[in-house]
């Protein structure tokens, strides 16, 4: 879509600046004149919402950092000082803590949108990979952020996750010690996590710039998956997309506000209000909800090293998606079978999330005893996560490559405007 620029400087200053640094032209071409497919639905508003989330996290985080003390002896008390004595400190902290969850809600919707409408397919592979890099950086940032309040879950979550690296052969223990900056999770670990937690969001912002650049080179996908063919298929970004994105952001902020003001601790764990204590292991260590599916995959595999590899493999699959999917048709709107498998995939992810929150040996159906296979009863969360894990990988490694070769897609329209103007409003 990087066509010819239609920007015309209007004032003397703009003309002067335009030949020296065409930054106003860049902004105009990217966010005003930029042609967007006219048939985008609300699933396309989450890109804007994600930028909003990043902005909220950076601004609230910078002010929190003015009052926060990154040391094992003082961190917990400094967060409580923010909550009690800093003016509107409770608001900043609840914004930041719930903002992380909202960020992940938005990113998961954004990614599933991409999978459903085939937004990762040529020529959008680099765009997709940049998105995956952002997601990876977000996970690292949120993990280290959760360590900062230095509650029980902060400490034990950090211990469990950093210990995963010790499963690597030969170098594992050395890597873990190096990550910790000592021989246990302690002040040195907390201080470096704070430093990185401050750094990574700005790296995310940098990758977001690349992501948007790549987007503006190849153009947006749309619910039909058919590329725009003529001017009739698109509308200028401003005012059409801006006002729609703005409306969606405002609705998103309502949900965000309900969490901040009326249920600020609903997505947190009570144990994180207990100061970190290396001598007392909580009965049940669970990560934040957005990591639960990966945590379930990790625990589904009986071998520690294989579990770690499966967990990272689960993320690697998302990166490799553009080359795993063989279908010529982008949008699942015209792929009824793909829709079905996608639907099951969604359920598998949600089920994995629940398994991650449970003890592996807890019974799924209370009271029912069945066969014991591989040391665990079949009626247990570990077996449920094994089945879901198998589907998760099966979806990427079998369904995606094979379905494209064997399925019979529905006929696709010639242009975006033909179904649109014909009044076909599905999905």
């Amino acid at each position, binding site marked *: 879509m990087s066509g010819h620029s239609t920007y015309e400087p209007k004032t003397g200053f703009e003309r002067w600046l335009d030949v020296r640094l065409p930054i106003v032209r860049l902004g105009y071409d990217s966010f005003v004149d930029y042609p967007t497919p006219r*048939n985008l639905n609300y*699933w396309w508003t989450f890109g804007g919402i994600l930028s909003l989330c990043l902005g909220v996290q950076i601004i609230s985080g910078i002010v929190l950092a003015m009052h926060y003390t990154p040391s094992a002896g003082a961190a917990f008390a400094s967060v409580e000082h923010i909550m009690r004595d800093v003016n509107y400190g*409770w608001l900043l902290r609840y914004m930041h803590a719930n903002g992380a969850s909202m960020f992940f809600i938005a990113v998961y919707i954004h990614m599933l949108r991409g999978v459903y409408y085939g937004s990762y397919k040529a020529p959008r592979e680099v765009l997709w990979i940049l998105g995956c890099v952002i997601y990876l950086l977000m996970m690292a940032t949120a993990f280290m952020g959760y360590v900062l309040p230095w509650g029980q879950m902060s400490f034990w979550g950090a211990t469990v996750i950093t210990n995963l690296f010790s499963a690597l052969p030969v170098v594992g223990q050395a890597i873990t010690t190096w990550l910790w900056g000592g021989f246990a999770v302690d002040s040195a670990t907390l201080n470096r996590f704070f430093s990185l937690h401050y750094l990574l969001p700005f790296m995310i912002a940098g990758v977001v710039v690349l992501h948007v650049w790549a987007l503006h080179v190849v153009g947006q996908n749309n619910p039909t998956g058919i590329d725009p063919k003529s001017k009739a298929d698109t509308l200028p970004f401003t005012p059409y997309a801006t006002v729609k994105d703005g409306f969606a952001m405002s609705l998103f902020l309502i949900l965000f*506000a309900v969490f*901040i*003001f009326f249920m600020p601790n609903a997505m947190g764990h*009570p144990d994180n209000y207990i100061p970190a204590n290396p001598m007392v292991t909580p009965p049940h260590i669970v990560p934040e909800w957005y990591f639960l599916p990966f945590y379930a995959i990790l625990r589904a595999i009986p071998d520690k090293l294989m579990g770690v590899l499966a967990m990272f493999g689960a993320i690697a699959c998302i990166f490799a998606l553009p080359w795993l999917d063989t279908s010529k048709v982008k949008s699942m709107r015209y792929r009824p079978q793909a*829709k079905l498998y*996608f639907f099951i995939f969604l359920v598998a992810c949600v089920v994995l999330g629940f398994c991650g*929150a449970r003890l592996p040996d807890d019974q799924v159906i209370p009271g029912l005893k069945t066969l014991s296979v591989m040391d665990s009863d079949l009626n247990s969360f570990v077996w449920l996560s094994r089945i879901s894990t198998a589907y998760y990988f099966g979806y990427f490694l079998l369904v995606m490559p094979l379905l494209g070769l064997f399925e019979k897609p529905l006929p696709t329209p010639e242009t975006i405007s033909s179904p649109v103007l014909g009044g076909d409003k599905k999905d």
Partner: protein
Amino acid sequence: MLRKVTLFAVALALVAGPALASGKVREPHPVAFSFEGPFGRFDQAQLQRGYKVYREVCASCHSMNLVAFRNLGDKGGPFFDPKYPNPNDNPVVKALAADSQIRDIDGETGDAIQRPGIPADNFPAPFPNDPASRASNGGVLPPDLSMMAKAREGGPEYIASLLTGFVTPPAGLTVGPGQHYNPWFPGDVSSAWSGDHAHVPEGGFIAMAPPLAPDKVEFDDGTKSTVRQQAQDVAAFLMWTAEPKMEERKQMGFSVLIFLVLFSGLLYASYRRVWRNESH
């Protein structure tokens, strides 16, 4: 289709709920606290009674390090008085602070001294350090109570149930010295149970002796001092110490929501207007 899929996933998420139970423990009794729900506020008289229970009973074992006397006179607090927007001037707060002796260092001689408290002081801890606290409590540390209502599943309802839940242990359960059976306290009593192993009693053993008794605390407002009343009042007080900005938070929440709903309406109208001639 995508819409149906999403609805299904959300429904599944809501139905299954984030249950995190490990051992068997009894569900807390529901209590209709005044601060529940989006419109809920603290009941100031209840907070005052709760403070009295805390001060006269719990404070002899438990610290409350994060709360200062001045907080008692903050907006939403037990002794807030609109006449004294600065709680440091509030005479009730000053008197309550002066009731306590604070460990300090004499600025001239460097000797350890005790002096009467001022509103800026945090609540004094009953023991000078954790080992001393353990030594006086059979080797178990009574946890700091400042955040207790947010640090346990079930919050204030759990605390109220725990405090009223010291029941006679069922026959067949051996309770060790310094231990007390409480079905609401998370734990595992199977190794002390000689009965049917398919029916191990719920709950666990807690090292805190039943702290409350009828009329142990005399309420200044004439409320009948039952164990249940004391337990609920101190639980409400602990909710306040854990979340002192709750009223301010909910109040601001309503302004923010009203603004956002109006703003969304305005944006929706603009959206309809901008798109009125475009099919999509």
